[in-house]
């Protein structure tokens, strides 16, 4: 009985994925976002092969060089090749996005499972905590956490991850509460399935759609947040080639060499926009009701 039900559920999931994929493919902007993300991943992986120079290689005799054949986008205040730094920067941005969201998802899911599954006092306590947590503006919380952890890219990633986890906690909790009240959970209890199995089997799959949308959208937001931390000196430290840090360094030369803030900014907009386009596309594909 149970195994046939699981198989049916699996078959349904399979077809669901293909339905979502088919819908997603129709959305040209989402596909464009996906392609750009794939390119960014490739660039990040093969950065040492693609980049003409090392990101930290200085040439103090050739600072602020205009674009030339040797330096396609010119050089910065320390004579470092701008293009190479942009290429290496892809690595940092993707890392920031992926790792901070991973931290947030794991923390948030754990909290949400506790709150939604145990309910009662645990739930009330955790929800109160999240209320308090969310009454501190996100960026401010990241700043406080990053200050406490100290400057550096890894600490910035942790700070952003920790400060954005409440969204995931709420999604998981909501889905758990919904599932808890459904009859098939009663049925699962009746056949003596363990609590943990119930959670894994029924509640999490239900939460996957909203979770996936939040994850995709938050990768972009995390990249933005990290750049802000870099801007106030809490993010990536020199000589790391991170776009936010490059912007911050370039800010001092805004009157004379605007290109130093233009290029990293454009790179950041393109990558964040790609994640957001994909996120929007996923939302429409996973929940077409929202679109119409």
């Amino acid at each position, binding site marked *: 009985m149970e195994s046939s039900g699981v198989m049916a559920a699996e078959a349904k999931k399979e077809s669901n994925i293909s339905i979502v994929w088919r819908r997603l493919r129709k959305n040209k902007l989402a596909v464009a976002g996906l392609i750009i993300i794939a390119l960014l991943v490739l660039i990040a992986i093969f950065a040492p092969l693609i980049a003409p120079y090392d990101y930290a290689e200085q040439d103090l005799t050739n600072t602020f060089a205009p674009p030339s054949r040797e330096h396609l986008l010119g050089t910065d205040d320390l004579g470092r090749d701008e293009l190479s730094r942009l290429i290496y920067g892809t690595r940092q941005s993707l890392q920031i996005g992926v790792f901070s969201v991973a931290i947030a998802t794991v923390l948030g899911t754990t909290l949400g499972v506790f709150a939604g599954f145990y309910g009662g006092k645990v739930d009330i306590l955790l929800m109160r905590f999240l209320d308090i947590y*969310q009454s501190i503006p996100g960026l401010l919380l990241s*700043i406080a956490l990053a200050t406490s952890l100290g400057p550096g890219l890894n600490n910035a990633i942790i700070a952003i991850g920790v400060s954005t986890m409440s969204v995931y906690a709420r999604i998981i909790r909501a889905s758990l509460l919904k599932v808890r009240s459904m009859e098939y959970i009663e049925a699962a209890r009746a056949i003596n399935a363990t609590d943990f199995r119930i959670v894994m089997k029924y509640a999490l799959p239900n939460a996957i759609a909203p979770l996936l949308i939040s994850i995709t959208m938050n990768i*972009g937001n995390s990249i933005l947040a990290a*750049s*802000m931390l870099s801007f*106030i*000196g809490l993010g990536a430290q020199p000589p790391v080639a991170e776009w936010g840090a490059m912007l911050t360094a370039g*800010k001092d030369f805004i009157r004379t060499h605007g290109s130093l803030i233009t290029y990293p*900014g454009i790179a950041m907009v393109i990558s964040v926009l790609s994640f957001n386009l994909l996120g929007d596309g996923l939302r429409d594909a996973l929940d077409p009701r929202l679109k119409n």
Partner: protein
Amino acid sequence: MIPVLLGVSLLVFTIMYFTPGDPAVIILGPSATQESIAQTKHELGLDKPFGERYLEYIGNAFLRFDLGKSYFTGRSVSDEVLVRLPYTLKLAGLAILWSIIIGIPAGAIAAMNQNTWKDNATMFGALFFLSMPAFWFALVLVMIFSINLRLLPVVGIESWKGYILPVISMSVGGAAGIARQTRSSMLEVIRQDYVTTARAKGQKERLVITGHILRNGLIPIVVVAGNSMGTMMGGALIAETIFSIPGMGSYMVNAISKRDYPVVQGGVLVIAICFSLIMLLVDIVLAFVDPRIRAQFSSKKKKGSAAKWKAAA
């Protein structure tokens, strides 16, 4: 409300408490003797246990509005905050105002022209602005309008012109978010039966949109606007450092780099309190907009409905 503020202060205090590095060493410099470090610690009350320090801190903060002294200047944090907070609130307030003025009509136009080029262009534009680091946009604006065109001042707020660039740079993200929310909540309402009822009464299309569709879609929009006030205050911190505005931002960013913790802690706490007050205001506005929420309020004055909507959004 009060439990939330106490919770916020505990959270902020705890984060700062676990910050590595001895404040006494930061103040006195690395060459200080063990003795003088111990003495400074004692003077600052840093040798007391966590609970006692926290109680003392919130006691001072909430009862006497005393947030401690800066490690470096020795000046009262509360006094600084009183001078600086108005600038930050003014910036954030202006920015949220503009976000609403631009965001709601843009979202409404998109919703009423769903799946046409107007809709697609507005929504792509909104997503584009949401994908942009606000401080980068501020720098680009400075480059164009202050440095190249020389139309507006680069820094400072001596005249109203000084507010233009910071407010624009801060409001585009908020406007984009509000436009997206307006569109989706209007589309949700547009198919409701009561909209058809309004049309069947012979109501003018414009009034169907404003009086029935927008009015019902307003609830999530108000929540998003309230939430973006939090983002705005975060954004104000950044904008202030770029445009050299003497608000909370420049004060705190400076303190962060010097590890002047009382300033950071006080600043975060004050802004969090402001944000909590704004969320309370959002709840009141919601009750004003929606009689169902009003009824909920009067029957059981429990649980912020804003939090509920936030969870739903």
